[in-house]
């Protein structure tokens, strides 16, 4: 059975992109969220196997969302999506419990590599 993944990014474009990469590789999209706040809500609803989380988002950024998700479920697996120049934020997310990170612009094989390492 395909693993359930939740995508969180404020750009529809990015969500679409990741979604296609993942579904082509046999993963199922559990939910999509356009900001951190929604991500936390939806995490509670669908309990995905993995979350791909953008860092820079309106309403609530990815790091705060990560912390809240971790508070709800300590075993939550979250991979951060960052852009170049966000090193400190990525480190902060790793400290807060992110498993891995991928850097925009995305390369499909990198995304899959990270996802595979996280949930197989």
């Amino acid at each position: 059975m395909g693993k359930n993944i939740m995508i969180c990014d404020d750009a529809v474009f990015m969500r679409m992109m990741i979604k296609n990469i993942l579904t082509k590789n046999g993963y199922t999209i559990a939910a999509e969220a356009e900001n951190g706040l929604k991500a936390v809500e939806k995490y509670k609803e669908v309990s995905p196997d993995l979350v791909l989380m953008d860092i820079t988002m309106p309403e609530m950024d990815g790091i705060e969302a990560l912390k809240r998700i971790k508070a709800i479920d300590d075993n939550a697996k979250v991979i951060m999506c960052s852009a170049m120049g966000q090193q400190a934020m990525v480190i902060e997310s790793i400290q807060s419990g992110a498993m891995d990170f991928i850097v925009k612009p995305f390369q499909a094989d990198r995304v899959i590599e990270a996802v595979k390492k996280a949930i197989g």
Partner: protein
Amino acid sequence: MDVSQYLDLFIDETREHIQSLNDNILLLEQEPENMDTINEIFRAAHSLKGMSGTMGYVRMQKLTHDLENVFSEVRSGNMKVSSKLIDIMFRALDAIEAYLQTIVDTSTEGTEDNQDIIDDLNKVLKEGTAQDKEEETQEQATLTAAASSGTGGYEDIPIDEFLRGAIEDAKEDNMTVFGLTVTLDDNCMLKGARAFLVLRALEGVGELMKAVPDVDSIENEEFENSFSLLVVTDQPMEAVKGVVENVSEIKNVRIGQVTADAVKQAKKEEPKPAPAAVKEAPQAQETGSGNNAADNNASAKETETAKDASKDNKAGHKEGGKSQGTRSIRVDIEKLDNLMNMVSELVIAKNGLSTVVGRLKTGSRQINERIEYLENITTNLHEAVMKVRMVPIDSVVSRFPRMIRDLSRKLDKKMELVMTGEDTELDRTVIDELGDPLMHILRNSADHGIESAQVRAELGKPEVGTISLNAYQAGNNVIIEVSDDGGGVNVEKVKSKALSKGLITQEHADTMSDDEAVGLLFMPGFSTADKISDVSGRGVGLDVVKSKIESLGGTVECKSALHKGSTFIITLPLTLAIMQSLLVDIGGEKYAMPLSNIQTIEEIPVDMVKSINSSEVIELRGRVIPLFRLAEILECEKGEESEVLTVIVANKGEKLGAFVVDGLYEQQEIVIKSLGKYVDAGKLIIGATILGDGEVSLILDATVLI
């Protein structure tokens, strides 16, 4: 990776970001310190960079990257917003828009590098952050040293007394000490964070004794591609290696056991701490002073701003964001047209049904109830479909503040645009056509209306001229008013101009009211500007605006007061397809008149009709209103003269007209069907409709007679 499938989405979303940038930069010009605005701009530039990079538009990515860089500095308070910066930003924005246009047209970004804009951006960046220069140079020095220290393997790690003690302790506890040299992928980005992941992974299996460069430097990306570690663990070598290799983007891991012998050797070789740094120093001078140092410097700066950024973000979401995207789907307008058409047919069918039932006379209460229910539903359905087609005029007017700003610079006049009611909605087909006429009127106000600051000062007006655009809904119409507090229309000048162009006669000019004179502005071939500027007055005048608005079923009029300003009032119908109408009898035939501009229906005794200048008028509540006998105008068969006239009073803007009809039927929702271009019925007849009984009736827009 094939990205063409994302192109549409990319284009749509890029457009949104460009608009957001446009709005926010304008806002920033007003409030250079507004942190929310700065954050918004940063975020939009950031998203654009990520999106264009993913699509492989490298030039666009480069430009947005530099834009983001500048804002990153502004955001962290290292730089102030200057008017120069705003100008460059607008240029950059135009360039991004040009990229987008090229992408829309050709699916490639073209070959324009916009190097001049990039250079200017970087220049501004340099100037703006000049005060931090000294600090940076210092930083650079320490960085150069640090950068060099990562190049050796774990064998070169200097071991001091403390470490040696720790290694011996470990051996006694049956633990092993491994030395690791981890090399990251060449194209790995955010190396610092990647290395940090490695450190975290190792913490799971053992304890980190020593890292070269030290942990802080690793986190700050102050190393080349590799770093070395000493780890004490009770796990076998393979397990330790495996943990590290499981981290993504690792090129290779070199691992070996570190023993007391090796320690001794190291000690003999170099007793002082940090030999690696010393040993590598000459090499660092060769390469480090060049590109590497600069790179490292940049990355350190980036890290710094990123830290600030994360702080800002935290502050941001506490206040609660404002820019929440609306949930929407995109639908082809043709599908909506089709839907509207079918709803129209449904309305016709419903009208037919209720007519038949009405004729039955024996219809039971039950049938009537159901017909009423059906009527309710079709009306609601019609409204719902209409709403789907409605778009806020925001999509048209949002580009105007920028335009006025540019005009203000170009014309060297001070002015500002105040807009209200941008959320007023209009039918999509109307919106699409509305942009040009509105732009023309605004340009007109900016060019001809607003005076130069000097003249304004002499007249005792505020130096900055105001142009306002107000939109609001009134009944079935939407009104858009564009007013300025400029010079107003010089009636005498207009008259003499019209005379010289042969548009009116001298006699006509003398008897003309001021309002009529202002109306001359809308005549074809009229342009009052003394000199032709490239802003307005290119020969295409307000007559084009007028015909455009009229083709949309609307009207435009102008009110003006000399030295006080002018107001253009555009009235547009909410929708073009279905409307409420009044069915009237003229010469024995049924005509439909739009209900939206009917004011009152009056019974007027024949002897109340007066004659002024050989045209008929009536006096109603203190106003003199011209009277039109529709039967005569339409050349219908004349009915019997009655003692009392049934008169419909309708308005066109501020003007009223009284229309004589022979009788009234009822109010009905009608579907407008075009007569096609082969029937030139003049503007009086705007279309036809099918009534409930299958009869065809013409739709009269009598107000054109006024």
